[in-house]
């Protein structure tokens, strides 16, 4: 029981937040200067007659007050009907499903690698405060935190793809080929540079956070006592430090999905990688309202799940928060 009830509260809260996100998205789209009927018609604007426009308005409820429209949209969402994307000429749900699959490889790999790399670097830096290693890692973290993601991606493209020719210039596979019959090697080849860029850029927060935790611990009575028992710095860093720093690192990693998705949007744009991030940008540039709204909700769900996991993990793993029984 004691574990389940906070979980219920958490889930209810998440549902409420998602509802608010839906409201926010709807409000923003309503406020935009884009006419919803134009947006629905897309390139066929010129061919539509007034009657057709009215029919569309009636069909989608554009002629009704905003609150009713919102309710209608929510109802549609609940029944799995997310609308039609005129940019991709496909149902929105299909666009998201297809594109997310491709982005998942990028997002997941970069997330995993940046968490591991960030944690390792943070622990190494924290072993000895102000050592040369610490200074190097610290500078690296500060510089990457200040680097525009798309600029680094561009530099990578210039160096590795254009000048050296090691990696492909764009896309998820060779042009003209269907995504289904790509070998794993080809896919990885196309993923390598985007993943590397995203990883490099996403390590900084975890590195800095882990380093701060390690510094705190290495100056704490726990470390002093370990030194008094004859332990070396590396032993203390490993046995006590890594143990103390790993929970916050995992938490931070779970909570950083939103920031990472921002990176994915930019990186996919630079590498012309056909994933969810690029679809988002396309949707915004070409006023594909249903797609943009669905993506906003989808990513909010993802981020909320990440946040909830972060919170739950803390309660589950830390013995001080774990209930006795």
């Amino acid at each position, binding site marked *: 029981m004691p574990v389940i009830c906070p979980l219920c509260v958490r889930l209810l809260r998440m549902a409420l937040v998602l509802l608010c996100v839906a409201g926010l998205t709807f409000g923003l789209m309503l406020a935009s200067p884009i006419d919803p009927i134009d947006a629905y018609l897309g390139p066929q604007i010129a061919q539509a007659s007034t009657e057709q426009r009215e029919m569309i308005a009636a069909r989608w409820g554009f002629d009704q007050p905003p609150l009713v429209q919102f309710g209608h949209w929510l109802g549609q969402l609940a029944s799995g009907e997310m609308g039609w994307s005129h940019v991709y000429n496909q149902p929105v749900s299909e666009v998201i499903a297809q594109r997310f699959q491709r982005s998942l490889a990028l997002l997941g790999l970069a997330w995993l690698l940046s968490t591991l790399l960030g944690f390792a670097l943070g622990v190494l830096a924290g072993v000895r405060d102000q050592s040369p290693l610490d200074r190097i890692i610290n500078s690296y973290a500060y510089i990457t935190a200040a680097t525009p993601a798309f600029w680094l991606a561009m530099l990578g493209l210039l160096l590795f793809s254009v000048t050296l020719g090691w990696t492909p210039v764009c896309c998820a596979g060779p042009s003209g080929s269907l995504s289904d019959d790509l070998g794993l090697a080809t896919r990885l080849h196309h993923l390598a540079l985007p993943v590397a860029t995203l990883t490099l850029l996403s390590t900084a927060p975890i590195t800095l956070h882990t380093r701060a935790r390690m510094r705190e611990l290495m100056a704490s009575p*726990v470390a002093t*006592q*370990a030194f008094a028992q004859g332990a070396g710095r590396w032993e203390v860093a490993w046995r006590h430090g890594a143990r103390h720093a790993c929970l916050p690192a995992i938490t931070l990693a779970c909570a950083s999905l939103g920031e990472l998705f921002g990176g994915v949007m930019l990186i996919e744009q630079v590498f012309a990688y056909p994933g969810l991030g690029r679809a988002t940008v396309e949707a915004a540039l070409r006023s594909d309202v249903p797609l943009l709204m669905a993506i906003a909700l989808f990513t909010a769900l993802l981020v909320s799940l990440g946040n909830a996991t972060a919170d739950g993990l803390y309660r589950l793993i830390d013995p001080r928060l774990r209930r006795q029984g």
Partner: protein
Amino acid sequence: MLQIDDLSLQLPYYASWWRRQWAEVLAGVSLDVRPGEVHAVIGASGAGKSLLAHALMGLLPAPHRQAGHLTFKGQPLTAARQRQLRGRELALIPQSLSALDPLVRSQRQVRWAAQRAGHTAARAPHTANQALAHYQLDERAQQAFPHQLSGGMARRVLTAMAHVSSAQLVIADEPSVGLDPQQRDRVLNALAALAREGKAVLLISHDLRHALPIAQRVTIMRQGRCLETAPAAAFEGDGHALTTRYAQALWRALPDNHFTSPVTQPAPHVA
């Protein structure tokens, strides 16, 4: 066993935001600790007792200036030798209970201490269990996380950690603070028992009254200086055997000695 000659210590502080200056926290401290004796160092908070303990163990934070001579078992106790002997010949029972790692079960922490003291990984669990049992810590306490232990139990876990090291010099920093009378006596008796085994015990405390029963000699510290070292027997009657007025005043201020003339003048800031 341990000889401290004219030890002085300076620590940095910031006078303004960017100007660093040095504050003298220990000045001309000299004392010696013999095998089989409990030597108590008594002083008010801020007297530099804990810094003395850390200086002996070589645990001071990086920027500090230290002068004077430390001799352990007839050889100079340099920083390198301190590193070598820590946990094997020198043991510290820390002042703060937060020295226990909150994320590790107590038995495991004692086992690590045993490994650091040179016991093999195979032998360490056995040694740890023996030490814990020696201090009356049952299976439940051994498997508990530090936040589940009472203050007295946590203190005994720390003592067990010092015990597994089989160190010849044990420095106990305020081991009785925050304990009820029964637990306090238990911990102090454990220290006296270590001395009876032939080890040297340096007992650091602010509490003269409770240190006296187990100590053979007492050093009074004030504002980073040693005022006087006297046999425990000198603390009797109206304290006429004590040479400094501060020590006399400290002795007379105890509740059993009619609370006469406590030290009232405020201590000037250590500079």
